[in-house]
């Protein structure tokens, strides 16, 4: 639907089927239907992201970075593994939001 010709064709078909004089489609709120597992499988970076969320203790650099974060809640003082475990669902939601523009 990002191709203008496809949009024009769809608008024409819909306006004919619905008996409208003209119709304009707005894709601003249209979100793709995304499967989270498939999204991660198709994206090498996200595989790494999920590996880090599930086992942050295996990456010292990440542990150090989180310990130095200037969070407003004071999260940097918490145990990084527990923190990521606690926020796993939120982080998955952010992955969907930023990488797929939608929810699974």
């Amino acid at each position, binding site marked *: 639907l990002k191709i203008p010709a496809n949009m024009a064709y769809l608008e024409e078909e819909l306006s004919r089927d619905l008996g409208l004089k003209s119709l304009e489609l707005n894709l601003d709120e249209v979100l793709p239907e995304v499967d989270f597992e498939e999204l991660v499988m198709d994206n090498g970076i996200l595989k790494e*992201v999920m590996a880090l969320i599930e086992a942050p203790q295996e990456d010292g650099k990440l542990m150090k970075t989180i310990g130095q974060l200037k969070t407003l809640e004071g999260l940097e003082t918490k145990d990084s593994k527990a923190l990521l475990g606690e926020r796993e669902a939120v982080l998955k939601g952010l992955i969907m939001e930023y990488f797929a523009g939608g929810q699974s």
Partner: protein
Amino acid sequence: MKIKEITLNEYGKFNTQKVIKLSENRPNLIYGKNEAGKTTLVSAITELIFGFNPINRDKHPYLPWGGERLNLSMGYLDRRGERFKVRRLLSNNVKSTLEEGLDINNIGNAALPQADHLSKNIFNNVYRISAEQLQEIETRSFSELQDKLVLNYGNANVSPKEVLARLEEDIKTLYNPRSRGNKQRINELMDRINSLKKEKRDKESLYQEVRVMAEDIERLDKDIEAIEKTVIEKLQLKNKVSRYINPLELMEKIENLKASIPGYGTYEALDQGILSRFETLERQLGDFEKSLMEEKAYLRSKESKMTVLTGEESRALELEDRVAGIEEVEETLRIQTDYLKQINERVVEKLTSLAEYAKEIFVNPGLEIPAFNLQEIQTLFYRAREMEEVKGRAWVSGIKLLAIVGLLGYGVWAQNLYGLGVLGIALILVVLDYVDQRRKRKNTAATALKEKLAGLGVQKGIAENFSMMNLKSFESIQDLQKSLETLRENKQFLQQKLTASQEEYRASFEGFETVQDTRGLGVLLSEARTKLKLNEQLQEDLDRRRESIEKLGRRRLQAREEFEDVSRNITRYGGGSLEKGKENIRQFFSVRERVVHYERELRENHQLDDFQESLGGMDKELISEEYLRILENDLEVLGQEKLEKANRRIQLKTEIDHVISGDTLDVIDGKLLEAHEQLEVLTESHDNLLLFEAVLKRADEIFREKNQPDVLKLAGEYFRRMTQGRYTHIMIEDDEKMYIKDRTGEVIGADQELSAGTKNQLYLAFRLALIQFLDQGGEKLPIILDEAFSNWDEGRLEPTLKLIQEIARERQVLIFTCKENNIRYFENYLPEMERTII
């Protein structure tokens, strides 16, 4: 994984079985014209490896026209050389089987076990290289494709770099510790919380002031209440004093007023309207006198206008009923005169005709025509004429003679009785004829006629030759004489009638001097009638006036009698003086009006009956104007005091309202709570974004460290071979941009001016390296090159196809084309190529 054979039983346009055999070690060139089914075959390969998508048969784009299912199978070898066969069927549901030797497993719609390390998306987006993808890179910079190629296998649309940039922006939008403005939502919220806290503190301070003012208001309320109570008591007392003062004053006034009129009681019997009645009667009498004088003058004026009829007018009125009869007589006279005139004219006319006839016939035609007998003359004339006619007919005598001779001959010849009879008749006829002849010869009638006419004095010639015309003249003379006689008789009769009518007509106008006819009589009569009518109308008017005068006289009399009564009555109250009486009465009524008013006020407002009782135990000395003034003064002072306190109360109330305007403490607390909750949510979002950013950055680093060098190294090697050593390396530097190094050691940016062909080679090198990287350690899935080399020049095509041929030894390669021209190049540079035509 290497495909040996694909069988399309029912799939897309292939609704009859189509078997395609492929080589596993050599490049496969699949040629088909447009619409031959190349794209269908690519889709079939993908679905055979990864399963149907969609799994709803009716929505599947390759459901054969008029068909009810999709049915296809594929034979392939895995990397160990084991043979497999997959069959996939999509009708109401999906059914797939995988055969390995004698084992048959149902795998549903799952991907083949040899492809479970990859997703269908990656296979479609990375393993299938199309002309469209190569065209795409010609219009974009390589930096735009870089992450897509290196980090996302060319699969995702969003790069980590873009996500990190967005994350940073979103975090800054939420909070920035160094920002002095309030553009960040958390900063803004924190400012708002501080502002609310300050507002709360100020409000608490104000509330203390309000409490003090409220206590003042409470005291003022009590004071005002006490004043109002006192005011009510004073008012009640004042009302009581006022109530007792008035009746006493009123009673005193009434007594004084009555005393001002001596003999007040004697006036009570007087009618209140006596004076006005007197004046009315006086005025009415004057009006009556005036009206009577006017009416009488009018009467005299009208009487003088009455008209007297003349003698002729009276006579005309007497004849009024006979006018129609006189008019009839007048008409009769006119008709009779006309008729007499007509008779005279006809007599003259007849006499003239008679004289003419006489002149023609008689010798001496005088005034008198001799009398004659017309019948006698006619008889003689017709007889003489008949005799003359008989004498003239000799042939009749001859015939008669022959007839007689014949009869005689027959009588002689017959000699019998009949003959004798006939003879006798003949003899009789002879005798009769003889007598007749004698008479005719004499004609005595003509002679008698002549003698007669001569005796009458008829002209000699006419008498001797008297003709039919002469006879007609005699007849006309006799007719004229008869007519004249009749006319003379009529004239005589009419003359008599006319004389009688004239006499009657003349008699009708006897006594008139000026009137001679009915027309004059009509004019006179009309004048007389008009006069009579006018006199009648005047008389009616006079009668009405006289009646009116009579009524006026009666009313004047009544008024005078009443006037005299009233005058006597008034004079009595003036000690014999009318004017004094009127003055006294006027004064009495004036006083009585005030007395009645005071009495009514007493009666209505003061309940005089209960007056003594209602005084109660009150000291009568207090019922005075002075005490009343003291009370009024007290009330005024109290009112002033109350007003001052009420004003102060309003002032305090206004100050309180002003102080507590805006939000209450509860509202401010509510807003604070809401702002804290929002801050908590935003803070958590901010921290989550920070956390996500940290993890993503670290993952990006790890991925790059882990994979980028291998992919870049292999892509660089492929690129070197494709460009026949012109370019030797591909690098990504610290600025995260891609660079390439040529054989001279010069490094140029991939975004700089590269030809479209070189860009295509670089892109293909990356894709081939990625494919190699993606299935390392697993089954190598086939590469599909779909018209990928359509626009390549020969110089670039040769080294690239040699590379492809080398890759095809370990990974199956399927090259699709619809261009016959390209086949020559493929034959030249891919000598081991297996050709398949669909």
